[in-house]
């Protein structure tokens, strides 16, 4: 050849084959992600092993659980995190409440994410009347007060943990759908999608192999953000009497039951609040790490 000027070979200098190390292995190598995993492991273990971790019944109102004036007890050697207004052990209630909150946070949020992604991707890729119809419906749902909708749903269907989870999922997918729609429509304008069409790729391949992977970071961020939102929405519903029915504990309803006594007995709000915060933070840390790990352009840049 005629022009061996700057050899257009090494762009990055290193060219060895890099097998994709397992996502899990790379996840546990990151200290922050590991912290997140540990927190989630503790919460899950606490929820599963609650009967063995504590000697109390979550719903038992103990005589020695209140002061003589009937006020809740602050943390002490007997009740580690204190007791609530009815003289129940707070630690026990938080452990049992973790079951409810995990189911709500993971199931309700997961279903919301799934619906939102499907609607958003479909509307963004198939513009035209399908897309318009889907997005107008999404706008309608957005305009409708989420809480009111959840109340209606929960009221029509008999309240139970799973029904509450579904009600939350059905109101929470809209924001995800909006964001995913915008991203999908800009992605489908990108040149590599045109390039896929010219080699004969059909819609399923383009959607699943070429568009979804690019949406992962967004989905992960919305997923982790959604956990705290859904846990709190469940608490709101409980407070209004249509969530998980008392005396079943959930982190949200512990806070709502006790919030009026915040000044007299701050631990009653502080501990369940800290639990929600820790869980949301844990998912956030893992989400952040996953986003970086799953993005090949974040690695091997010169």
């Amino acid at each position, binding site marked *: 050849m005629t022009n061996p000027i*700057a050899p*257009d070979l090494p*762009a990055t200098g290193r060219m060895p084959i890099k097998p994709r190390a397992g996502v899990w292995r790379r996840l546990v190598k990151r200290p922050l992600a590991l912290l997140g995993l540990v927190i989630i492991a503790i919460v899950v273990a606490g929820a599963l092993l609650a009967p063995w971790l504590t000697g109390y019944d979550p719903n038992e109102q103990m005589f020695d659980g209140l002061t003589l004036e009937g006020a809740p007890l602050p943390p002490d050697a007997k009740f580690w995190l204190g007791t609530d207004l009815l003289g129940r052990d707070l630690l026990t209630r938080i452990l049992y409440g973790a079951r409810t909150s995990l189911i709500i946070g993971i199931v309700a949020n997961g279903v919301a994410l799934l619906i939102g992604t499907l609607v958003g991707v479909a509307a963004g890729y198939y513009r035209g009347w399908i897309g318009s119809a889907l997005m107008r419906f999404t706008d309608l749902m957005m305009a409708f007060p989420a809480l009111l909708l959840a109340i209606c749903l929960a009221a029509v269907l008999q309240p139970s943990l799973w029904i509450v989870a579904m009600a939350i999922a059905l109101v929470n997918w809209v924001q995800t759908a909006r964001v995913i729609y915008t991203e999908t429509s800009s992605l489908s304008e*990108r*040149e590599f999608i*045109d390039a896929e069409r010219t080699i004969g790729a059909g819609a399923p391949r383009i959607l699943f192999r070429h568009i979804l992977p690019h949406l992962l970071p967004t989905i992960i961020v919305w997923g982790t953000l959604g956990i705290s939102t859904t846990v709190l929405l469940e608490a709101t519903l409980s407070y209004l009497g249509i969530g998980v029915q008392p005396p079943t504990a959930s982190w949200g309803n512990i806070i709502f039951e006790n919030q009026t006594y915040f000044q007299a007995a701050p631990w009653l709000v502080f501990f369940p609040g800290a639990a929600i915060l820790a869980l949301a933070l844990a998912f956030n840390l893992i989400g952040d790490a996953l986003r970086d790990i799953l993005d*090949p*352009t974040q690695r091997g840049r*010169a």
Partner: protein
Amino acid sequence: MSAGVTSRPTGAATPVGSPAGRSVLEIAGLCVSVRGEDGEREVVSDLSLTLKRGETLCIAGESGSGKSMTALAIMQLLPQPAARISSGMIQLGEIDLATLNERQMQRIRGDRIAMIFQEPMTSLNPVLSIGRQLTESIEAHTNLSSAEARRRAIEALTAVRISEAESRLKQFPHELSGGMRQRVMIAMALALKPDVLIADEPTTALDVTVQGEVLELLRDLQREHGTSVILITHDMGVVAEMADRVIVMRHGRMVEEGKVADIFARPQADYTRELLAAVPRIGAGVGRRKSAEAERPGSVAVLNDLHVHFDLRGGFFGQVNRRVHAVEGVSFSIAPHETLALVGESGCGKSTTAKALAGLVPYQGDIVIGGRNLAGLGRDERKAVRRDVQMIFQDPYASLDPRMRVGDLVAEPLLIHGIASKQERRERVATLFERVGLSADQMELYPHEFSGGQRQRICIARALALRPKLIIADESVSALDVSVQARVLDLLKELQREFGIAYLFISHDMAVVENISDRVAVMYLGQIVEMGTRDQVFSNPRHPYTKRLIEAVPVPDPAKRRPRFARLDQEIPSSARKIGETPSKLVLQDLGNGHLVAVS
């Protein structure tokens, strides 16, 4: 051989070139480093230069040579916080710019040194009128009242030959064409009569006829005001056209410096020689077969009366009120082994024609591939027929899915069409990689780990995977450096010899077209105005538009510098029309031997 490199002057004490003229800007021992993940890297090393009053100094080099970093360092606009000037001084008159703080520098920028950028759309604020932007920059540096600033702004716009300057002040950047926007940028830069104007690839984003005008404008204004210009470009044609002196840079270092005539006539450094050799030139199209395809048995693809329209919606109810006639009755055929080049300026419909042929936009008319008219076929049949037509896009950075391994990307066409087992696919991809000049171990990498030229090779491998009969190359080498461009063009030619592929080669670059094509079709406003063999079109252009296109290409030879460019008397009209209005159809007349020219 490299004596010219080692004798390069360093330090401010050594004056550069002849002592004639006072120096305006002096750079001595400038080093710029950028902090990355693996520590600091020098992107400009020990650069020294002197700019004299009224002089045009061209800094030429390929991407990554540090030419733009040098410009940003002078302006103290290096990307923060990653990049910094690690040593050296930049002397503007008595002031060392490298020691100034941001506040002091703001007074210098615009007033004493101005800069214009490559992309005038992104460097103008889209939500402010150009009048507001012009007067703001004038008011920031002078004590003029707003009425006086406005007068200055009108003067500046008139100076860059913008007609009806006063009413233009109210317009917004998107209402102007690319060439107009770049003129506004120049007006802004020159409104304050700076000592130094830095132009970073000012015409790269412009069409070739517009480029000529903008360059001429720069030359005129410089003569009038005595401004010193640092012109940064990768285009040796522009260098030859504009420069008094030239600095050639590579990998952050000055490779050679000298008068423009010396650089072109007697390049000292090897790199300069190679760079000049790689520049495509009109009239150098050698080694191509004589156009014997006149008989053309069994065309690979035939387009007959192709129309592509886009509806523009507007009004309260979003009804269709205007229609873009992007492609308006285009017909041509491509024979096996043949390269048909489709040339024209932006908006002429050449890319839309390609997209219609590749099945990316709906069209009216007939597209016949391998003897089968796509219009009459079902979906699966159409997919099978389309296998024979593959496409290579302009931007190799954008046309590969960044989240897939390149090996999988090249294997994907085979997978989609259900060809070969997994093992066979791997082997075929490995062969393809080697065929396009990459190594098979690179299959596991991701697109971002490659350079632009390599990525374009990956796109070529991908297009080749289905063994197509026709490859559409849509500006496929335009984004590449000239040396890389030359090698990719060579690869395309080799592949054509080997596999007998036909190319539809779409380009705005007449010199490249002249080097690769057998036949050329010139498009203007959605229609073909001239078509013929390469020799017919280049040695005997008949349509005025073709003539202007060829003349506008800057010749990489300072001895052939043109005194004036043909002035464009008006903007290229838009191809959007009201509903019901159809453009008049051009009739092509055969001048003999298949040389077709539109008659008016």
